[in-house]
C-alpha cells in the first residue's frame, strides 16, 4: 500500500469511527452548561456580611457574638504583631507587587459581533476584546496595578457579569459583577 493511501485510509477509518459513535455526545453542551451552572458563585465577604445582617437578624445574634469575639481577638493580636513585624503594614493583597500585572480577560462568544470589558479599572468605559483567529475566544490582556477590581463583559450589548475566571462575584443594581484580586492572592501573583 502506498504511503498516501495509508494516510487516507487511517483518516477515513478514524472519521468513520467517530461518525458511527458521535450520537452518544448529542446534548453534551446542555449537560455541561447545567453542571457548571450548579457550581454556585463564590460571594464576597461583604456579601456574606450583608446576608448575616439581613432580615433574620434575631436568629443571627449568637453567630454575630462569636464573630465579634473572634475579630476582637485577632485585632488585638494583629496590633501586637504589627508593632514587631514592620513588613505587615497595609493590606497584603494589594501592596506586595509594586509593578503592574498582566491580567488576561477571556470570554467565549462564538458569533458575537463585539465583546468588551467594563470595570473599575477603566472607569466602566468599554475596552474591546479581540478574536483575531475567529475561534470564538475573545481576549484582552491589560496591565493592572495590584488591587481589587470589579468588572463585567458586554457581549453585543448584553451584560455578562459572571466571568469563570473571577475570584468572586458581587451583585450590584440587580446584576452580577465579577471581581478579580490582582497581586498576592490574585492574577500575576
Amino acid at each position: 500500500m502506498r504511503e498516501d493511501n495509508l494516510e487516507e485510509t487511517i483518516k477515513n477509518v478514524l472519521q468513520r469511527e467517530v461518525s458511527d459513535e458521535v450520537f452518544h455526545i448529542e446534548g453534551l453542551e446542555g449537560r455541561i452548561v447545567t453542571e457548571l451552572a450548579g457550581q454556585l458563585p463564590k460571594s464576597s465577604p461583604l456579601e456574606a456580611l450583608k446576608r448575616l445582617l439581613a432580615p433574620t437578624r434575631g436568629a443571627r445574634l449568637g453567630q454575630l457574638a462569636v464573630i465579634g469575639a473572634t475579630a476582637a481577638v485577632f485585632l488585638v493580636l494583629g496590633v501586637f504583631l504589627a508593632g514587631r513585624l514592620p513588613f505587615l503594614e497595609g493590606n497584603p493583597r494589594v501592596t506586595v507587587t509594586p509593578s503592574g500585572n498582566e491580567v488576561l480577560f477571556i470570554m467565549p462568544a462564538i458569533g458575537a459581533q463585539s465583546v468588551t470589558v467594563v470595570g473599575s479599572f477603566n472607569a466602566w468605559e468599554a475596552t474591546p476584546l479581540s478574536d483575531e483567529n475567529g475561534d470564538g475566544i475573545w481576549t484582552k490582556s491589560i496591565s493592572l496595578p495590584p488591587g481589587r477590581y470589579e468588572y463585567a463583559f458586554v457581549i453585543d450589548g448584553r451584560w455578562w457579569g459572571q466571568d469563570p475566571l473571577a475570584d468572586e462575584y458581587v451583585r450590584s443594581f440587580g446584576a452580577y459583577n465579577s471581581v478579580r484580586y490582582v497581586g498576592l492572592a490574585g492574577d500575576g501573583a
Partner: protein
Amino acid sequence: MRASLEGETEAWGEIVVRYKEAVFGLCLGFLRNRADAEDITHDTFIRAYENLRRYRLEKRFSTWIFTIASNLCRNHLRHRRYHPVISPSDPVSGGLDPAAVVAQEDRWTRVREGLDVLPYGYRAPLILRYYNDLSYREIAEVLSLPEGTVKTRIHRGKVMLKQAIEKDGVIHYERG
C-alpha cells in the same frame, strides 16, 4: 438562580458545540473505547472551563483543549485495564461493486484492529495528525514531546500499521 446561572454559562455551551466532535474523536482514537471517550470528553470541557485562567494567548484555543483532553486520556489509561471497545461499522457501498466494498472493509478493519493494539505513544500522534489535522509542532505541544520525536513516532506508527495490513494479520505490541 439556576436559570440565571445557566444563562451565564451558555456561552461555554457554544464552545462545547464547536469542539465536542473533535475532542470526542481524539478521545475515541486515544482510548479506543466509546464509553470512556464519552466520559473524558465531558471531563475535558468541565476542566477547561475551570482552568480558563491558565489559557495562554500564544496557543490556539483548539490546541489548548486538545492538550487537556490528551492529558486526561493518558491519566485514564494509567488507571484502567486496556480493553478496546469500538463497534464495527456497517459497510457503506456507495455504489461500488461488492468485491471492492468487501476489500475496502477488510482493509479498514485491519487498520482499526491495528490502531487498537498500537502502543499509545505511537497511536496518539497518529490520531492528532490524521483525525485532528494538527501540524507536527502542534502535536508536539499537545503531547509535550520534541517535534523530532513526533515525526519519528508518526513514521514508525505508520510502518507498524502497514505491516499489520499487509501481513494479513493483527500486530501485537505491549501497551505503550
